[in-house]
Every structure is written in C-alpha cells, then in structure tokens.
C-alpha cells in the first residue's frame, strides 16, 4: 500500500490508484474534463495537471498512478498558473454563448472558469468559427465551437456501445468531432454522449431549449421503460417532468441509460385521466367511491366471484400490487387474476430488456409466483362467451398485439361492469363504467423490483395530476367503503408488512445500492 502526501494530507491508498482518485479520497478536488470514471484515460485536456515533487514537469493527475512516498501538490503556484493557462487555451475560441446553451448551469467549463480562471479574454483577433447546430444524430446535436475536444463521446461510442460512430477530424484549432462517413450517431444510447459531454457541445434534441437546468428539481427515481429499472434523476419543473438523467448505480445501469427509456417520461403527462369518471362523466372521489362500492357489491352478488376478473399491472409499484392483492383476495374475494402490462419489445445485451414492464419481478414477489395468473387470450374468450361478466383492470396495458386488443375492446361492451383504474384514458375510459385516476411513479413513492430481483425505491417528485391518487390509496378508499378491515394510512405501513412477509418467505429484500 503506497503512502502518498497530497497537500500535506498523508494517506495510504490502494496500489494502482491514480493521483486524481487519491486526491478525491483526501478531500481535494482536481478539476478535469476528459477523465470519466467509466471510460479509458487519454489525459488530453490537461486540466488535471498537478505538481509531483521531484518530477520535472507537471503530471496529469487522472493518468499518473501514485507511488510510495509521493508528494503531490494540487494547489501550488505552478499548478494554479497551469490551470489558468489551460482554461485560457480552451476558452480561446469558445463562443461564450451561455445564454443560448442548454448546458449552462451544469457546465464544467463555466464552473472551472469561475473557480480557476476568472480573467478576461486576451484574444484580440476574430474567434475561430466552426459548425453550429450540426445534426450529428437523430437524438443529439453537435456544436463545434463549444467543443473542447475531450473525446469523451468518442470513447463512449468505442468502449461502452462498441458502435464506433464518432471520430476527431482535422487538426489544431480546426479539429471537430464528426461521424465516420455514412454513419450517424444513432445507437440506442446516443444521448449518454450529451450527458457525459462536460460542455454544451453535444446536447439532447428532446431537451433542447425546453427548460434551463437551474430551474429543474431533481428527484431520485427509477426508469419505467423496461424491467432493467435504470436509476434516474427525475428532473421536473412546475409539476412536469423535463427529462430523465441516469443516476450512477454500478449494480444496475452504471452511468448510462437508453434513449428509449429517456423518452418514457412523456407517458406520465400524455392522455392522463385526471378526474374520476362514471360512464364518461366526471365525478368527485366521494361520489365515485360510493358508486363503485354499490356496483362492485351488486356485481359480486349477481354474478359471484367466478364471473369477476381482475387484471393486475406489472407497471404498478410493489406497494400498489400488495394492496391490489389484498383488495382482490380479501375484499372482493376474486380468484380470476390476470396479468396486464405492456407486450414484450426489443432487447439488447447491455441495458434494454425485452420485458417493458418495470415491476414484473415485483408481481412475482408479492403474489408468490406468476402461475396463478390466467392467460389474457382466455380472458378475452371468457369475456366474449359471457363467463367473465365483470372486470376490474389496473392500467391500460395488455400484453397482446393490436388485433387481440381490438377483440378485447369489443368484448368490453359485453361486460356488465368494467372498472378501469389507471393513469391514462386510452380507448378504455370512455368504455369504462367507472374510471378511477391513478398517479404515475413521479407523483408517488414506491418500490420496483427489476429483472435481477433488486428492489429499488423511487421517490415522489411532485403532487399528483388532477384528482389522481396512488393505486394503493384507491384500493384503500374502496376497501373502506366496502367495510373491509384494511387499515393502511401511510405507504411505509405497507412496506413494513410487505417486506416482513417477503423476509418470512426467506426471500430477503435487497437494499438498493446508491
């Protein structure tokens, strides 16, 4: 274990640790642009130069490994002078168009300029002009003037996705990032290049000009695009999600997430069911709870539990599913359970999973296996033949193709009672005898279990849209109205009981890693 002294702090680090990491352990920040912990180290930005006693030149801290007895200074006069010179060099042809740059506010160049440079430009000639608003890919735009040529994006495409779209063309002050001829930056993870870009050279088209980053509030959440459950910063402004940004979790998604998942935030705001509805007319919760109670009671009395179907959604959180289980099993006493959710999609060997539902493993854990769920095909057949006369459905999704879904929609008209409890209108809310608005993962807290069995909590970002409520609260409302002894007031009561139950089964709930 080499001993190293950094700015008079003596510490012992693992062999092979770079000076930059050792300095971070000692509590000193070494500024850097090109270094990214998940990528290879080119040491080309020269921002992380530090003084090593005995060495003739300043050394790049990101690349140089510590040796025993090394004495490093990160704030000496020579280093400060070098940092200032490097920043002046990088900023020489920088357009300083921060007012129109989406990166402003989370820009390393801005931060470092304020912290390490803070001098006026000494350039007396015209700035070099390069390409602006260059469509480098379908999701990403490139601005050559802002680019500091750190090559993080190139290394991302080489080392993480392996797609090799990007390269550096020209030399000196004409150098720019470009795609190879005939290629464009269209890999499924292309927006990650905009994330890792330390300046505003690569920006996301979806987020372009949408909101300034300093207005965003960030909430730790989980992407609902597929069963991988990538950890995200859910960034919102005025009760609207503006973007998803990957949150570091080495066990799940590292620093990355896919472009498709990034855009799933749109589902949270599109086509939302905002008011409880009865036969297409908006009601309040008080009225709709009583109506639902009466209708459910009548349906159970007339048809019995055998004619009652209940569709569970793997889009809902574990807490919601637990209450769905209690509501269907203990209150309605229904056995005909079906599993909804989105149909399978494409997958790759990195992050994207074929199962597009964030919580199928949660269903598995809450309901002790997936065997008890009936086939959706047979549900539709039963609905058509009249064996199922009443249906309670969570969320709009069914894991079937469009044709079968059309059959399902037609079969709804045959039902005596169709209750929809979900986020979206879809085609269903107008057909539903009762439509109960549920809120999305952004508006409540809960837990998703990803494909690997890792339970990951997500937090509430903003207040529910309209009159919508979390699924579990809707179940509680109905259960209370139907005279059931269920008594959950807070989500942690459900969590305590649920995790207790799963631990009793010998299936310890894993704590999510940050």
């Amino acid at each position, binding site marked *: 274990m080499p001993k190293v002294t950094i700015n008079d702090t003596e510490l012992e680090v693992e062999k092979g640790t770079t000076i930059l990491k050792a300095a971070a352990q000692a509590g000193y920040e070494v500024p850097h642009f090109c270094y990214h912990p998940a990528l290879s180290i080119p040491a080309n930005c020269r921002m992380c130069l530090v003084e090593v006693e005995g060495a003739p030149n300043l050394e790049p801290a990101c690349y140089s490994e510590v040796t025993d007895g090394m004495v490093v200074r990160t704030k000496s006069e020579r280093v400060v002078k070098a940092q200032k010179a490097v920043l002046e060099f990088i900023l020489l042809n920088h357009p300083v*168009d921060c*007012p129109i740059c989406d990166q402003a506010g989370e820009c390393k160049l801005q931060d470092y300029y304020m912290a390490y440079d803070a001098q006026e430009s000494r350039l007396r000639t*015209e700035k070099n*002009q390069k390409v*602006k608003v260059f469509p480098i890919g379908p999701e990403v735009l490139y601005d050559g003037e802002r680019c500091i040529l750190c090559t993080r994006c190139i290394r991302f495409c080489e080392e993480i996705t392996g797609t090799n779209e990007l390269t550096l063309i020209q030399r000196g002050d004409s150098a720019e990032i470009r795609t190879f001829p005939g290629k464009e930056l269209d890999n499924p993870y292309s927006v990650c290049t905009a994330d890792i870009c330390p300046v505003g050279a690569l920006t996301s088209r979806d987020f372009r*000009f*949408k909101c300034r980053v300093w*207005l965003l509030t960030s909430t730790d959440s989980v992407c609902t695009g597929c069963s991988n459950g990538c950890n995200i910063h859910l960034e919102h402004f005025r009760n609207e999600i503006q973007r998803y940004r990957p949150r570091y979790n080495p066990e799940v998604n590292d620093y990355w997430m896919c472009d498709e998942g990034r855009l799933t935030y749109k589902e949270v705001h599109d086509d939302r069911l905002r008011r409880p509805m009865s036969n297409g007319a908006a009601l309040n919760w008080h009225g709709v709870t009583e109506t639902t109670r009466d209708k459910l009671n009548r349906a159970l009395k007339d048809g019995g539990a055998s004619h009652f179907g209940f569709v569970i959604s793997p889009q809902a959180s574990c807490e919601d599913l637990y209450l769905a289980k209690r509501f269907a099993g203990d209150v309605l006493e229904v056995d005909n359970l079906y599993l909804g959710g989105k149909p399978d999609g494409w997958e790759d060997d990195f992050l994207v999973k074929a199962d597009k539902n964030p919580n199928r493993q949660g269903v598995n854990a809450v309901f002790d296996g997936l065997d008890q769920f009936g086939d959706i095909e047979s549900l539709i057949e039963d609905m058509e033949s009249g064996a199922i006369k009443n249906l309670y459905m969570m969320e709009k999704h069914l894991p079937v193709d469009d044709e079968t879904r059309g059959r399902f929609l037609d079969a709804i008209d045959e039902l005596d009672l169709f209750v929809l409890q979900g986020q979206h209108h879809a085609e269903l809310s107008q057909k539903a005898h009762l439509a109960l608005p549920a809120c999305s993962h952004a508006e409540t807290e809960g837990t998703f279990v990803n494909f690997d069995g890792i339970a990951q909590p997500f937090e509430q970002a903003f207040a529910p849209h309209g009159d919508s409520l979390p699924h579990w609260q809707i179940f509680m409302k109905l259960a209370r109205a139907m005279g059931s002894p269920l008594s959950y007031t807070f989500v942690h009561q459900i969590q305590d009981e649920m995790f207790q139950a799963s631990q009793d089964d010998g299936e310890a709930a894993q704590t999510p890693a940050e």
Partner: protein
Amino acid sequence: MGNVNVKQVDRVKQGLWEKSYIPEILRGLSVTAGHFFRNLSPNKSKRTIFTRDYPEEPTDYPDRYRGLHRLMLREDGQVRCVACMCCSTICPADCIHIEAGEHDDPGIEKYPDVFVIDELRCIVCGLCVEACPCDAIRMDSGVHIPPYTERSDAFYGRDLLMELGGLSQAKQGGDRSPS
C-alpha cells in the same frame, strides 16, 4: 412635570383698523384673488401652483424611471432576446413567461417564441433588466404601467413589447462572417 418650560406669549393687540373687520377681509381676499388670476396665466412659467392637468399634461419622469418593459431589437428588426430565461429566473414576482423556439439562423439559434410579461404582477424592481446579458429587455420606456379594466389586457406579449423597443448600442454575438 415641574420641568416643563412654559412660555407666555402676549396676544397681539388689535387696533381700530383690524377691529373694523371689512378692510382686513378685503386684504385677505385680494391675496387669494391674486393667486387665482396669476395661476390662470397662459404663461405657465409664471404660475405658482404645482398641480398638473393630468392626464393631458403628463408627469416628467426622471431618466432612470422604471416604466413599462420593452424588448429591444436587432438591426434587422428581429427581437434581441435569446430566451436565456435569466429575467424570468431572477424575477421575484414570477411575472415573465418565456417559451424558447429554434431560430432558422444558426447564428441566432434560440429566440423567444412566446414572451409574456404580466404587468399587473410586476413589482417594477428592474432585476430583469440587470439580469439580461443581451440588453434585450429594458424598462426605460418612460411610460408607467396603465390601469386595466381586463386582467388579460395586462399580459404584454412579445410583439407588443417589441413595438415599444428600439435599437441597442450593445454589440450582440451571432454575427457570422462567411468562413
């Protein structure tokens, strides 16, 4: 209480002239009438009163009076604003609403598609002017915020704000020489 100094004032003795009443009344009226007629003078500089015939005769505001906002223009008449949202961020009354749009000219790139100021909500603090990096918003129109009968009349849109605008002396980026 003993420390209070009481000053005795002798009453002015009235003579026969004052006691006869009428002449002093007339003297007082002549002062009033003198003011009255002097202030009817067509030569305003000779008047001695400080009231104005508002609104026909508007107030002269000081040079740095903060009045209605205006949006400054580029030389070709386009709006200078680049929708950086600095003004709406700093605004303590939250009265500026901007939606950015993509400009056809890559040198300009970003411009305000929607720019609305709620003048009723504005507290006339001038922070938006100080925050603006482009000298695009100013409050030096010299017009104070008028009263409105409709609340929606107080929402000043981009084009209305540009009508009050003019050219700025400040140099703005985005000029791209053909390279």
